[in-house]
């Protein structure tokens, strides 16, 4: 009985096309929200993991190097390097800062990384070269800056000599990498403070007043201020799924109301209730499945409009189709009562 459902879709194609487009936009927005939410954790994990540390040594009493501000003397890195079990130890400065770009009036937010040359945390490059001298910096390409651009952070001026990629935090804040000393000059007035020591290997014991964090704990620490936001994004996604179900359900229900006489006549000539219900479910599933496929294209087209990086994961894309089918089935369920309550005797009524 697919024939009746498909022909009815063609018959009311204008309505169904509008429904498909509306549903596709809703699905695309859920994909984008999912992309924003997924990217928030992914970008932090990517940035933290790119440091290449097995552990992070931080001041006791804080949960991580970025969310809490607690500094330690630079020589802690030297002490850590000599701890039994430690293979490598490099100082890290890691601060949220605002950056002034030459030629632009408004400041931009960044995460400032101070790393030692050839040490842990030095980023891979997509263009230019690495930091080799005082006053040089590498920046993530999400900033839109290029080599030779000049920026000011705190009291320090930096010339961009290279760009890296995928090193953002908090929904697209680019990272700026410079030498530890330049960063200390720019934000600590030259005081030899650092915030963490990146360690390779596992120390047998720790100096008093310090604790070890795993990279996952560092990621959790950075993510903590964004948990409410990601929860809200996920909640909005669920509401959008519900809105999509409502759109499809309304269309199928209105169609079912208009087809009441058809249902009566079909039942009177021996078409079973199950076949009629399956026909409505087919319509709901087709509408949502087509909308889901269309939503990929819409989402990709909408992505450049967003100021934050988005991660459309394969799982989100793969999950969308079955979830959309489920939404279609649930939406068509709104019309079950209409079919079940249609009296075939209605077919005998005059038009």
């Amino acid at each position, binding site marked *: 009985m697919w*024939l009746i459902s498909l022909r009815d879709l063609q018959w009311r194609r204008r309505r169904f096309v509008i429904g498909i487009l509306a549903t596709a936009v809703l699905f695309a927005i859920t994909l984008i929200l999912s992309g924003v939410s997924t990217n928030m954790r992914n970008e932090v994990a990517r940035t933290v993991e790119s440091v290449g540390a097995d552990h992070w040594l931080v001041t006791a009493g804080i949960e991580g190097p970025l969310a809490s501000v607690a500094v330690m003397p630079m020589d802690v890195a030297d002490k850590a390097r000599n701890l039994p079990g430690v293979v490598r130890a490099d100082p890290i400065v890691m601060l949220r800062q605002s950056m002034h770009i030459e030629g632009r009036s408004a400041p931009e937010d960044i995460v400032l990384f101070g790393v030692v040359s050839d040490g842990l945390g030095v980023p891979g490059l997509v263009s230019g070269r690495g930091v080799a001298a005082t006053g040089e910096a590498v920046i993530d390409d999400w900033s839109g800056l290029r080599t030779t651009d000049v920026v000011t952070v705190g009291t320090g001026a930096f010339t961009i000599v290279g760009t890296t990629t995928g090193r953002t935090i908090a929904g697209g804040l680019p990272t700026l990498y410079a030498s530890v000393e330049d960063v200390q000059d720019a934000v600590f007035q030259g005081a030899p403070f650092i915030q963490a020591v990146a360690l390779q290997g596992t120390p047998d014991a720790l100096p008093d007043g310090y604790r070890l964090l795993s990279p996952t704990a560092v990621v959790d620490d950075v993510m903590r201020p964004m948990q409410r936001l990601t929860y809200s994004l996920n909640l909005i996604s669920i509401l959008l799924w519900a809105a999509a179900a409502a759109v499809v359900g309304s269309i199928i229900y209105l169609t079912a109301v208009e087809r009441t006489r058809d249902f009566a006549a079909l039942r009177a000539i021996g078409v079973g209730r199950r076949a009629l219900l399956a026909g409505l479910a087919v319509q709901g599933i087709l509408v949502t499945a087509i909308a889901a496929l269309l939503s990929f294209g819409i989402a990709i087209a909408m992505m450049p409009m967003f100021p934050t990086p988005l991660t459309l994961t394969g799982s989100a894309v793969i999950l969308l189709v079955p979830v959309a089918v489920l939404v279609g089935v649930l939406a068509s369920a709104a019309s079950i009562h209409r079919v079940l309550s249609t009296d075939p005797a209605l077919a005998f009524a*005059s038009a």
Partner: protein
Amino acid sequence: MATVQLTDVVVEYRDGNQVLRPIDGFSMTASPGELVLLMGPSGSGKTSLLSCLAGILSPRAGRVEINGVDLAVLDENAMSAHRRHDVGVVFQAFNLVPSLTAEENVAVPLLAAGAQRRLALARARQLLTEVGLLDRLTHRPGELSGGQQQRVAIARALAHDPAVILADEPTAHLDHVQAEGILRILRRLAAEGRVVIVSTHDRRLVPLADAVVDLTPVVAPAVDERPVVTLDANETLFQQGDPSDFVWVVLSGQVDILRDTPDGLETVATCGEGSYFGELGPLLGFPRSATARAATDGATVEGFDIPGFREAMGDKLPDSWGALAAH
């Protein structure tokens, strides 16, 4: 071969707080090759009988048998199969699916039975050819005339080659040229050995029929021009659904007028000395719409036929009565 048999069929509807019984104790048989007309005014139960035969309506009492099978014993699946295979229904309003072409509409019962689409469409083309619509196979109902739509509906009813064809007012929306084509097809279907049962107001069909069942409510012949009846308390003068005969005037005592409701009999009026009741039934040819029962011992009523009643009551009748009687 197929035989249609209805035995003591009672059809009852509840309409708000009233119980209507358009069919009360109806029996008939129809044999293969017969074209049977069900005739009667609106509300006389023609469509109710067709609905019973199609398995759409369950009678309150009695048996409906097709090919010796009592429809009352069929479960939902078996009933759907009965509607598909044993009977073909042609509706007054055609009831074609507007999104389907003519051949797809005819193929629907076959597809519902699980037939392959290719075979179903081939059968549909064959049937549409038989009803003269070979050149309209891919037209949708909106592109067909009323007569053509009704022919598509007939072809759809024939999809499973059923032994019984039920047609509800098949010529109601057609002009005489289109109606003639439909009648010719219906007659041919009967001649091929099917039972064709047609409900209609259209008397043009009578010469074509093998049997005519008149469902017009019977007005009982008057055996006494002015009977006088004395009733004991709670004795019934007439019951709801009985044929109408006289207009009754209360000479003494009181008579209750009672109506069947889902909760039992409900008193709608009590008529005392000098008042009258039951006038619309004999005037309009309707069966009794209520029951009359004596409220007191020795209640005496006198019956009048319509002319006699008008003569006896003269100026006492309201103006509305005059308008009704003249009508």
